[in-house]
């Protein structure tokens, strides 16, 4: 791919909630009243005690309006209005008493129901009634934009994933690249292996076989050259390429059962070995390889050492973008007599997927504690990160990643002049 193509590549954050036009945000009714400014402090303190704005913490209690002639007018929210919009008889008794003693004149007005998720939403909210706005509470790089350097790095990792997606024998599959962004290193990668021409996956020999396999993939890709796809021999493929020109598992996870069975005879196949699942397994293999034989006692310290590990990783100087496609290296300059700190799963790591993952893969990435997900192509029918589901906004989960789409030209998938037919 040419560098000049970067101009056409764009990174877009996929938020936790479907975007709502800022001027169509849901509202709720509240009862408010104009007040004498000299009572403001007393009233607000009292109201916060007797009628706290539960479930509406983003709404400010007080509104200041500038009137003509340089005067200002203060209004406060007395309480949330009852559902049926019946006017003033819905005041709780203690609020009513307060209202009486300060001779307030309650009226009904609207405030935005949910906290703003963007500056645009917030500005729109304040036209109704002032609210507070906190940019996303989790602090994940990139949500507020990428620096030029970070963008280049992100795009280069996506290019690796795209090349990997095309590296099969004439078929396009989904591909995953797991990266440690603090050191700009590819940790591992994986492709769809529903119908695998790779070594059989055997659970009992996971330790050795899969390590071999992932090493092979690494070295294959670390050549830094685009695989000679034009020379792919269709005859070498286990089946007719045209029937499998697009075999992206996540696009239709149920399709495996419709595959012709004759192609599977001599090849191991597994309906759940989607690219993300394969990459997660490979990263776990790497973890066991780099940090072998830790006993139970030592395991107890993993969680506590996690935060300091991340800090040290962040402090580590970033390597040049030019090193991005370098082969996986062992933990940096590790003296042989010291035990390196083992990361907890994929904490701090990013994954690059060519297609938006299905719900199985998206949840697998939650389990493995991936920090950021970048995908190039949406998966309109079964995508779980904004298309069909939006797992990044599922509050009940114990881990949340940030999701980005990298908009790329469709041509990146061209193989030997054949357009993809996904």
């Amino acid at each position, binding site marked *: 791919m040419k560098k000049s193509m970067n101009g056409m590549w764009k990174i877009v954050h996929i938020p936790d909630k479907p975007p709502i036009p800022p001027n169509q945000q849901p509202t709720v009714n509240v009862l408010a009243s104009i007040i004498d400014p000299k009572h403001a402090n007393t009233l607000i303190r009292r109201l916060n005690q007797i009628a706290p704005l539960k479930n509406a913490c983003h709404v400010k209690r007080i509104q200041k309006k500038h009137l003509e002639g340089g005067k200002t007018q203060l209004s406060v929210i007395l309480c949330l209005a009852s559902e049926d919009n019946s006017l003033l008889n819905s005041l709780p008794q203690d609020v009513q008493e307060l209202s009486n003693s300060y001779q307030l004149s309650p009226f009904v007005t609207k405030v935005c129901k949910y906290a703003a998720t963007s500056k645009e939403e917030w500005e729109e909210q304040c036209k109704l009634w002032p609210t507070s706005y906190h940019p996303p509470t989790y602090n994940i790089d990139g949500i507020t934009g990428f620096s030029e350097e970070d963008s280049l790095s992100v795009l280069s990792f996506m290019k690796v994933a795209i090349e990997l997606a095309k590296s099969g024998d004439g078929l396009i599959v989904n591909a995953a690249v797991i990266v440690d962004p603090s050191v700009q290193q590819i940790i591992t990668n994986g492709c769809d292996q529903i119908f695998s021409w790779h070594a059989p996956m*055997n*659970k009992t020999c*996971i330790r050795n076989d899969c390590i071999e396999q992932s090493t092979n993939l690494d070295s294959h890709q670390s050549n830094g050259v685009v695989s000679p796809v034009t020379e792919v021999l269709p005859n070498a493929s286990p089946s007719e390429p045209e029937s499998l020109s697009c075999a992206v598992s996540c696009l*239709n*996870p*149920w*399709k*495996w*059962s*419709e*595959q*012709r*069975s*004759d192609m*599977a*005879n001599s090849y*191991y*196949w*597994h*309906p*759940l070995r989607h690219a993300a*699942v394969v990459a*997660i*397994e490979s990263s*776990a293999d790497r*973890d*066991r390889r780099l940090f072998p034989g830790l006993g*139970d006692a030592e*395991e*107890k310290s*993993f*969680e506590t050492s*996690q935060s300091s590990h991340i800090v040290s990783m962040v402090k580590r100087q970033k390597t040049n973008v030019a090193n991005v496609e370098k082969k996986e290296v062992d933990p940096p300059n590790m003296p042989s007599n010291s035990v390196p700190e083992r990361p*907890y*799963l994929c904490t701090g790591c990013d994954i690059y997927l060519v297609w938006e993952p*299905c*719900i*199985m893969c998206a*949840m*697998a990435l*939650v*389990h*493995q*504690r991936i920090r950021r997900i970048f995908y190039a192509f949406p998966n*309109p*029918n*079964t995508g779980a990160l904004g298309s*069909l*589901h939006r*797992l990044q906004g*599922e509050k*009940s*989960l*114990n881990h949340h990643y940030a999701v980005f789409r990298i908009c790329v030209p469709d041509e990146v998938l061209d193989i030997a002049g054949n357009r993809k037919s996904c």
Partner: protein
Amino acid sequence: MDSHVEEGCSSETLTFMELAIEQAKDALNSLEVPVGCVIAEGGKVIASGRNRTTETRNATRHAEMEAIDALLEQWQKSGLSVSEVAEKFSTCSLYVTCEPCIMCAAALSILGIKEVYYGCANDKFGGCGSILSLHSSTSKLRNSGNIAQRKDFKCTGGIMALEAVSLLRRFYEQGNPNGMNSIAQLQPYMMHRGT
């Protein structure tokens, strides 16, 4: 929607769930989150599995995935074709001590399993009714001619839920070696609807 029955479920169901509990105990003894399962076909257990996330350092190695992999290997070794395997899955029942998470529920749907019986609900990650309902096509699935027909599976929760929860409680009380030390982490497993 799934139902929650304890009384009235067949002795076969209870027998299989007891075997799943045995698997969960095995996980507990290995310092893994104690969730276990068995897969049965025609009244016989044909595969079992238990959590192996700590051992493998792969947080996706849930009991269901272990049992599924065992089955796929077994069936392929005996020479079954893709369509035969698909047919097989459609006659299998899964008995698992905790509601399958979103990932496992999606996997079970992809494989086209016939039915799932589970112990306690999983209010944090559950994919069979608690958070998402991936077993049921009444949940959203965009219609498209290109999408292979998805099959629903029947889902029944609350079977021997107390036993399942007590194992999880023991695990979290003794301290999860992999970090989840707070009793609050147990919340999703303890709160099962219908009881």
